[in-house]
């Protein structure tokens, strides 16, 4: 096994220009916003990080950059020591990206057909990889129904199942429990703890601080595109810590 960090983010910045035609006609940087500024991050294999922060602070942008869905304006990302920008297909083999968009499936296809399609895009045999994931996520009774007939909870579980099909080392989760009922949310948190115990590297974006507490590991607070890591003291209440840190940052 490689001794390189699972994820290294070096001097990463991301700028979103305003969408205007003239931006294609000029070399100058058009007006826009810096979504990320000089972000540094290193996660060892098996480590996990929960990203919290206000809406628009750059959390989703950071994990989309790691997932190779965005290209940075500055800086580099390494996945197990390999430059993800130069070797995106290699990076994608090791990353499981679980979106906040539970509609990113084909509505007229069944859950099984959807999972089979994405399994094959990962180069996997659907007959082998779907059953264990479906069993673990309690999807088996629903797999042969069409996707559009699913409840939000089942759609979200299918989304997680898709992200786990290829047995990734690193999981990128964007608000995995948003819009879920309390019981399904608890089940998903338990699954995340199980994955953490299996040695997966997890980067999770959430607004629910109890999820950060449950997952443990490092806590990253994002504000205005900057990442600041805090290490909670044993037994410290995450919500108190978060509010204190965010207020501190605003007061400076």
């Amino acid at each position, binding site marked *: 096994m490689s001794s390189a960090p699972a994820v290294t983010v070096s001097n990463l910045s*991301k700028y*979103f*220009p305003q*969408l205007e035609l003239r931006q*294609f006609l000029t070399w100058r940087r058009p007006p826009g916003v810096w*979504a990320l500024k000089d972000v540094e991050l290193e996660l060892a294999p098996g480590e996990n990080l929960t990203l919290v922060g206000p809406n628009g602070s750059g959390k989703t*942008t950071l994990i*989309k950059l790691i*997932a*190779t*869905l*965005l*290209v940075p*304006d500055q800086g580099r990302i390494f996945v197990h020591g390999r430059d993800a920008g130069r070797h995106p*297909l*290699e990076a*994608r*083999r090791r*990353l499981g*990206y679980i*979106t906040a*968009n539970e*509609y*990113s*499936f*084909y*509505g*007229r*296809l069944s859950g099984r*057909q959807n999972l*089979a*399609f*994405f399994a*094959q*895009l*990962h*180069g*996997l*045999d659907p007959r*082998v*990889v779907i059953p*264990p*994931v479906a*069993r*673990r996520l309690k999807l088996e009774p629903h797999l042969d129904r*069409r996707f559009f007939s699913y409840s939000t909870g089942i759609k979200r579980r299918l989304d997680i199942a*898709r992200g*786990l099909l*290829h*047995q990734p080392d690193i999981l990128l989760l964007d608000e995995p429990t948003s819009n879920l009922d309390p019981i399904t949310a608890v089940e998903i948190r338990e699954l995340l703890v*199980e994955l953490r115990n*299996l040695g997966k590297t997890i980067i999770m974006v959430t607004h629910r601080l109890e999820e950060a507490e449950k997952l443990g590991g490092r806590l990253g607070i994002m504000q205005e595109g900057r990442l600041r890591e805090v290490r909670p003291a044993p037994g410290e209440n995450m919500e108190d810590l978060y509010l204190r840190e965010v207020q501190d940052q605003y007061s400076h």
Partner: protein
Amino acid sequence: MKIWKIFTSGRSKISILTKIRAFFVRDLYEELSYPLSFTWRVGSIFFKLVTFYFLGRLLAGALLPELSPYGGQYFPFVLLGLALASFQGVALTAVSNRILYGMYTGTLEAMLVTPTPLAVIIFASVLYQFFLALLEILIYLGFGVGLFGFSLGSANLAATAVFLVLALLSQLPLGILSAAFVLVFKKDDPVTVILGHLSALLGGVYFPLKVLPGWVATLSQFIPFTHALEGLRQAVLNGQGLTQLGTQAIILCAFAVALFPLSLAFFAWAVRQAKRLGTLSQF
């Protein structure tokens, strides 16, 4: 539960062909989920042909020297024009439609986080549409032969097949260009609009190019569709082979060779722009 141990046996080196097959099967399942969709398409072809059949009968007694290079009859002439125009419609719109759908639903992002090369995603996404388009051409011909007295007796089938392939190869890059525009500008896709109208007007779908003013007819030579349709008509109606149709074939090959790298490069640039601007999932 140690689910990961079970997974290790699932890893296998599935070739690119298997990925392409996955796209085809996905689209087939989607099509089958709309059981009447294909039936309506067939019905639409039938009614279109009925209309032109009677128009052909109306013109049957007229002296139309412009049609003499195509056997003198209007219906066989227009049937092949309609069939290839529907094929071109797929070539121009299939990629951009798929890209738009993927952006709208988020499935494009879901595909782009798998280790599947971009080129495979583009080509495999439209394979089924081309299969259907080819089937539609056969339906046009089938209706023509079975119901409207169209004859394939003198057709050169090898040349016909070659011109269908060349029609695809010369026009698919235009569809990829169209998809690239959609990726960057979302809706303002000039390729489909301009080429769609130009091909209908200048490609000779409904009338021979000889009826156009000289300079307009010259302009039509810059559209691959014109050469594809001329080659197809000569192969089917007059039984001409590749020896006689070499010029058209070479022109179509030149279009394909020039446009394919350009369209792929532009598409790759468009994806990079979308990733730079964060608009891959914006519609």
